[in-house]
Every structure is written in structure tokens, then in C-alpha cells.
């Protein structure tokens, strides 16, 4: 009898709080989006599952001694996002960007979304109940970088309490890129602009591909050391692949290592989706600002491309500017698709890959600025 009471008092039913129940629903929603809607499932499935596990009453899976508590150390120490960045670097081909380097500027322009939403977060402080510090605002802004590991790395340093909401917003909007971007792209361009065909790319030599990551690293060392953890690991992965001399390390970085870390990172991010941290009016603000950041980043990229097209001797289709937000390779595919609508023979994919990977560099640079100036 005593045992039965003890058992009843140790059930989830007895111990549930409303907040925990709600956060579990959020977890199930993320699983639904990942599985049924195909929203960035590699991250949102583990994140959603982590959200459920960490909100189970009594079990304490995200508390000291629990699995998610230990896994979270990999985020707190910055290890997981940097290892993922290394793997992404190994998977990235800078060929299209090296063939047409001026498209790097599109990857610069699109980072305006980051700083615009940073300002937006500060402006939202006029709403009673909302109180974003400069650190919070910077961490929210980085959603506009449209790059998962960068967002998680910055948020873990500047605003760990907001990490869960920021990561969820970043990956969700990346999955929504095919819905968010096209209307903006169409609104800012004319039919004729969208029809512009770009000239075929030159071949890029292996030597150039080997030297590039080293050059990127050197520039980052000289100008912005605070960005070197991110850019350095990205360059390491890229060099491992481009050099061709450590093929087995490169393959492991791109496959098993990044897979293992992705599972751990996702679960650990999910463990930050606790009721106390997430069920705040701040979360609504973060979700709203994330959408704004993506929209403004897209618009800035397109506008920059229009300007460049004016001054360039070779034609530039403004649609590829939208790929500057990163969200590799989704944003480049969107540019390709919207281009095909206007001109069925116009394949922009390779041309959009340049700004697309430039966007990754751009947001890592922006992250470096935030990490070094926001104290």
C-alpha cells in the first residue's frame, strides 16, 4: 500500500506541471515538422526529442547526473558546434565562389539581416515585459546568419538561456527558406532581371582550392581573431578535403564524426527547451525577429546583387543575391528554382553556390564582431 502510494507519487501524471506538458507539446511539434514536413530533420528531430526528454518530471535527464546534462557540456565548451563546422567545411566546395569571387560581396550584404534584427530586439524593449540585453540582442540577431552551428556557438557564449529558442528559430526558418524567400525575391526584381543568364564559370584549379582556406584563415587571424575558432575549424575541414592527402580524415569528419556530434548537439540543444526558459514572452519576440532577420537578409542580398549588376561588366542575376544568407544549399536551390520560373533554360544553381558559401563566411565574420564587441 505504502509502495502503491510511493509509485503513484512517482508517476509522471502525479508530478506534471503545465509548463512541462506544454514544452513536451513543443517537442512533439518539432518532431512533426521534422518527420512529416521535412524541416531540417537532422537537427530538429534530435532537438525535439531532447525537448521531450528534458521536460519529463522526476527523471532529471537534463539535470546534474542525467545524460543531457553531460551532453550539454559539449555545447557549453563550444566543442560540438566547432566540430560540426569542421565537417561542414569538409563538405563545402569553394569552386563556384573562387570562379567568381565578387559574389562574396553578396554574402556580405545579406548579413544585414543580423544587425537589423539586433536593432529590432533592442527596439522591442519598449514592449513592457520584454527586456533584451545587448548580449541577448546579439544572440538573437545571429539567427539572421542562417547558419546553425554559428548561431549555437554565439548563443552559447552570449545568451545561453535563449539558446533553445534561438536554435529552434534558426533551423525552422532555414527549413522555411523556400517559403520565406521567393515572394521577397519576386517583389524586388523585374521579370527581365530574373531572366538574366550568367556566363559560364571558369575552371578552378586544385591549387586554388588548397590555398583558399589558408588565405581565409590568415585574413581572419589578422583582422578578427575572435572569429578564428569558427573560421579556423571551417578552414581545417575544407583543407582536409581540398588537399586530398588526408582523405580518410576528411571522410570521417564529413560522415561519422559529424553524425555523432549532430545527435549529441541536437539532444543538448533540446535540453535547453525548459519551460522556465522557453515559456517567456521573449520567445515570441525571438521567433518574430528571426523571421524579420531572414527577410531583411534576403532583401539586402537581392538589392546588393541589383547594384552589382549595374556596375559589373558581366551580367549578374539578382536572384543569386538571396543565396547570400547561407542556409546552404537550400537558398541556392531556391534561387535556381525562382530563376527557372522566368527562364526555363536558366540554371543558376552553380552561380548561387558562390554567394551561398560566402554567406557562411559572412556570418562567421559577423559572429566574430559580436563576440569581440559585445561584453
Amino acid at each position, binding site marked *: 500500500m505504502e509502495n502503491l502510494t510511493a509509485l503513484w507519487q512517482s508517476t509522471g501524471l502525479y508530478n506534471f506541471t503545465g509548463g512541462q506538458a506544454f514544452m513536451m507539446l513543443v517537442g512533439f511539434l518539432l518532431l512533426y515538422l521534422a518527420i512529416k514536413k521535412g524541416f531540417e530533420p537532422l537537427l530538429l528531430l534530435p532537438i525535439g526529442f531532447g525537448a521531450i526528454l528534458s521536460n519529463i518530471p522526476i527523471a532529471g535527464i537534463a539535470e546534474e547526473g542525467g545524460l543531457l546534462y553531460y551532453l550539454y557540456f559539449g555545447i557549453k565548451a563550444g566543442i560540438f558546434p566547432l566540430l560540426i563546422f569542421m565537417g561542414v567545411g569538409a563538405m563545402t*566546395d569553394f*569552386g*563556384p565562389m*573562387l*570562379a567568381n*569571387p*565578387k559574389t*562574396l*560581396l553578396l*554574402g*556580405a550584404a545579406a*548579413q*544585414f539581416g*543580423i*544587425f*537589423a534584427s*539586433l*536593432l529590432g530586439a*533592442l*527596439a522591442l*524593449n519598449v514592449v513592457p515585459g520584454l527586456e533584451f540585453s*545587448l548580449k541577448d*540582442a*546579439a544572440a538573437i540577431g545571429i539567427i539572421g546568419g542562417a547558419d546553425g552551428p554559428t548561431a549555437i556557438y554565439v548563443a552559447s557564449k552570449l545568451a545561453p538561456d535563449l539558446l533553445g529558442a534561438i536554435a529552434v528559430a534558426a533551423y525552422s526558418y532555414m527549413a522555411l527558406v523556400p517559403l520565406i524567400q521567393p515572394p521577397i525575391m519576386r517583389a524586388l526584381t523585374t521579370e527581365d532581371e530574373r531572366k538574366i543568364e550568367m556566363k559560364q*564559370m*571558369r*575552371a*578552378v*584549379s*586544385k*591549387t*586554388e*582550392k*588548397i*590555398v*583558399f582556406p589558408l*588565405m*581565409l584563415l590568415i*585574413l*581572419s587571424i589578422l*583582422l*578578427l581573431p575572435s572569429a578564428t575558432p569558427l573560421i579556423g575549424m571551417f578552414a581545417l575541414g575544407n583543407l582536409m*578535403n*581540398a588537399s*586530398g592527402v588526408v*582523405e580518410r580524415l*576528411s571522410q570521417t569528419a564529413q560522415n561519422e564524426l559529424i553524425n555523432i556530434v549532430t545527435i549529441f548537439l541536437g539532444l543538448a540543444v533540446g535540453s535547453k527547451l525548459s519551460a522556465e526558459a522557453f515559456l517567456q514572452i521573449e520567445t515570441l519576440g525571438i521567433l518574430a525577429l528571426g523571421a524579420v532577420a531572414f527577410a531583411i537578409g534576403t532583401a539586402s542580398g537581392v538589392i546588393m546583387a541589383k547594384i552589382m549588376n549595374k556596375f559589373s561588366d558581366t551580367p549578374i542575376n539578382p536572384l543569386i543575391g538571396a543565396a547570400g544568407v547561407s542556409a546552404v544549399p537550400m537558398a541556392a536551390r531556391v534561387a535556381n528554382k525562382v530563376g527557372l520560373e522566368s527562364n526555363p533554360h536558366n540554371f543558376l544553381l*552553380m552561380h548561387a*553556390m558562390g554567394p551561398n558559401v*560566402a554567406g557562411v*563566411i*559572412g556570418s562567421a*565574420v*559577423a559572429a*566574430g*564582431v*559580436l563576440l569581440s*564587441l*559585445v561584453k
Partner: protein
Amino acid sequence: MTEQMSKGIELMLAGMGIVFLFLTMLVLAINMMSALIQRFFPDAPSLAGTTATRSSGIDENIIAAITAAVHQHRNKHK
């Protein structure tokens, strides 16, 4: 305007400035590098858009199919 807001605007200016400065310098550096390499260290160019390595060229499905077929074959002949 609050002090925080003006700090934010400063941050935006500095940030976008650095981002453009960084990427512009990268453009210049790439142009320089490509010119130098094409003149002094020309090598057999790989097509832009193909990954540097891993050019196995063989469709991965085909490899899988072959592996399966060989495996089957070996099991039968054990």
C-alpha cells in the same frame, strides 16, 4: 533614443563595416591568388562545381548495388 539603442547602431555600423571590409579584402586576395597560381603554378584544372576530391565518379547507388551483388555472390560460394 536610449543609450542601449545607440550602442546597437554603433554595433551595426562597425559590424557591417567589418563584414564588408573582410569580404572585400578576401575578394582582392582571391583575385591576386588566382592570378598568381594561374601564371606560376598552373595545374590540371578541375571543373568548378565538382568537389575537389571524392571524384569517384561512380554513382554511389551503383557502388551499393555492386557491393550487394558481390556480397551475395560470396555468401553463395562460401
